[in-house]
């Protein structure tokens, strides 16, 4: 009992990624119209097909907006967003041409260094290629040459539009069409950059690829788009990280990620999401409204999502798999933490279409403070999906007595040969557990961190080695002060 009181008493440590970088911005005025879309497309010097697609998306979104069709079914609460009060494009003025880091504003380089993502050659993370997205644009991509030696394309989305328009045209919107949902339509209309990955036939990508998203400018939305294509027999592991400055007003982040895996290909997509969560009273923070979906197009293909969601005022995302190819495999491993006034409504969809497809869902929700954490998942077995299998495990951990955990699993089975397993649990972090560890000499803070890490272990072990350690640390930091 005392523990719970102490939990509420202790104030949070500060969000240490909350600084602002002083850079000169090239930004559009607030507001969204067809003209905004045209200007963004023109700024990026896009071919006609892109502008057409964006305009179609914009018009579709405008009808949704007129109908007030912003999704309201999620278990989150926030005041209505004024879409005319957002800046849709902001870029550091000193725009590099992406061939040389010398042209990047040194302030921006310093920002990434401060975030632990050095971009300069001599300091780069070994074995990890990084695409750095700053507000609306990609500012640098490391190890590009080395990757191109094996035929892997890893570049900003803008660059892909210029240099690989055929690939973009073929796959853009093929997994998440602009008609998919309100935020996907918005993203399609105004997205300004993102990452593009193409792994050719039979190539195993020789290093981890990663994108680091940073929101810096005020009043700006970040709308990025990531497209990853793994050709027959190819494999790639990709990781994204995100942070933003501390600001009193909320900022919108509406991204779209599309993955395509052909025959025998595999894509592993990991996220460590640490957007500014708002202060302890719920002021400020990022609205993270994201559509992520992968299509296992080819037979024996595999797509695996791993996410560690500790940031954002509100998280609304459901990384999903369309299991179209026979024997394809979809996986979703998630840790979602809500502390203070954070809200998360997150989960996955596994759509089984092909024969003998299988999916695994492991979701770990942690709620502390006044945090509200919702798991929402759908497993759909279509008629033709003979021999489909799903295993779902969904665990919630509560810290304190003012937070909430909610679970909404939807299961739809149209083929009688399928096998489904669903396990769920909700537990409170036990004072007994904490005391037990303390009695063995371990401090209370370490005890809590150990219990939480144990709870999340199944997910952490899916993360690339070097990031698993980071994720553990991040979780401890995010929970700091939530337990006395």
């Amino acid at each position, binding site marked *: *009992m*005392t*523990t719970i009181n102490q939990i509420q008493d202790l104030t949070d440590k500060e969000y240490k990624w909350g600084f602002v970088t002083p850079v000169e911005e090239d930004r559009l005025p607030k507001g969204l119209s067809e003209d905004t879309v045209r200007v963004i497309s023109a700024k990026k010097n896009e071919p006609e097909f892109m502008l057409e697609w964006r305009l179609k998306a914009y018009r579709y979104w405008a009808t949704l907006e007129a109908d007030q069709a912003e999704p309201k079914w999620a278990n989150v609460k926030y005041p209505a967003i004024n879409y005319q009060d957002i800046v849709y494009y902001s870029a550091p003025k000193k725009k590099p041409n992406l061939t040389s880091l010398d042209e990047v504003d040194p302030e921006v380089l310093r920002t990434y260094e401060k975030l632990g993502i050095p971009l300069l050659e001599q300091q780069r993370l070994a074995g990890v290629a990084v695409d750095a997205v700053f507000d609306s644009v990609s500012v640098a991509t490391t190890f590009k040459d080395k990757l191109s030696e094996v035929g892997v394309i890893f570049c900003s989305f803008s660059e892909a539009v210029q240099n690989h328009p055929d690939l973009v045209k073929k796959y853009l919107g093929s997994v998440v069409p602009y008609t998919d949902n309100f935020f996907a339509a918005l993203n399609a209309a105004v997205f300004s950059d993102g990452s593009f990955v193409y792994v050719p036939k039979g190539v195993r990508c020789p290093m981890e690829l990663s994108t680091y998203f940073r929101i810096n400018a005020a009043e700006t939305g970040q709308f990025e788009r990531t497209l990853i294509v793994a050709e027959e027999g190819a494999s790639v592991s990709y990781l994204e990280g995100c942070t933003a400055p501390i600001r009193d007003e909320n900022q919108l982040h509406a991204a779209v990620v599309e993955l395509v895996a052909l025959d025998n290909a595999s894509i592993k997509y990991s996220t460590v999401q640490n957007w500014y969560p708002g202060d302890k009273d719920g002021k400020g923070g990022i609205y993270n409204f994201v559509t992520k979906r992968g299509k296992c197009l080819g037979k024996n293909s595999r797509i695996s999502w791993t996410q560690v969601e500790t940031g954002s005022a509100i998280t609304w995302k459901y990384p999903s798999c369309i299991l179209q190819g026979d024997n394809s495999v979809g996986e979703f491993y998630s840790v979602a933490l809500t502390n203070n006034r954070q809200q998360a409504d997150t989960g996955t969809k596994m759509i089984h279409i092909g024969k003998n497809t299988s999916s695994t869902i492991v979701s770990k929700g942690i709620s502390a403070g006044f945090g509200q954490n919702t798991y929402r998942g759908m497993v759909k077995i279509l008629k033709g999906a003979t021999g489909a299998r799903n295993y779902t495990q969904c665990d919630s951990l509560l810290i304190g007595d003012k937070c909430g955990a909610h679970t909404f699993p939807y299961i739809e089975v149209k083929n009688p040969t399928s096998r489904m397993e669903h396990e769920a649990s909700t537990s409170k972090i*036990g*004072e*007994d*557990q904490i*005391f*037990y*560890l*303390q*009695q*063995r*000499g*371990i*401090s*209370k803070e*370490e005890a809590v961190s*150990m*219990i939480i*890490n*144990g*709870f*999340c*272990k*199944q997910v952490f072990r899916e993360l690339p080695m070097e990031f698993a350690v980071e994720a553990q640390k991040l979780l401890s930091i995010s929970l700091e002060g939530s337990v006395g």
Partner: protein
Amino acid sequence: MSMLEIKDLHVRVDNNEILKGINLTVNPGEVHSIMGPNGSGKSTLAQVLARRENYEITKGQILFNGKDLAEMKPEEAACEGLFLAFQYPVEIPGISNAYFLRAAVNAVRKYRGEDELDAMDFLPLVKEKMRLLEMDERFLNRPVNEGFSGGEKKRNEIVQMAVLEPKLAVLDETDSGLDIDALKIVSKGVNTMRSPNRAMVLVTHYQRLLNYIVPDYVHVLVNGRIVKSGGPELALELEDKGYAWTESEPVGAGR
């Protein structure tokens, strides 16, 4: 100096006074047994010694090696060398026994200003102790107490005690839930740990345990007070006559 000196200890839990003036002195090398009927305050005493929250000391004092135990956090008491073998060891899913034990050993070593042990130094040590308690090495990689039988949990407690080498070990109903074979193994482990520098307090309901771990002193706790103290023969007498017998004794008056 005494290892443990309890003076006129009064303890309240949830507004109920459970301990009503305990006096007890334990010297290095001694094994004391605290016996008593259900609800007499035996486990409360064990929890208070381990510094459990919400066990409020309203009066009296506990000195552990001359230091005021009431001033210590649970982890400080542990690092000072106080070990509690739990009556109901808890499960910690996802954390292996080996990881947990090494974290515990290193927390204590760090407190004492000693170098932390790496896995290479630690493993032989813990394996040796596991052999003593006849526990399979596979338990090292299993999550702490998860899926362990009652007996395995209790043996695991004694493995931890053996690895941590405390100055004062408090064993709370370690015999409960043990079959006779497990009881013998646990007792052997505990007896191996007896030394002139170490003291033990055995909290138990039954005399059975004391056939295997023979105490130097036996105290009978009834309704929050020690009503009778004696040698090992007192335990046998209790077994014979039951706790009601002590309650009628004049020492236990004042209820």
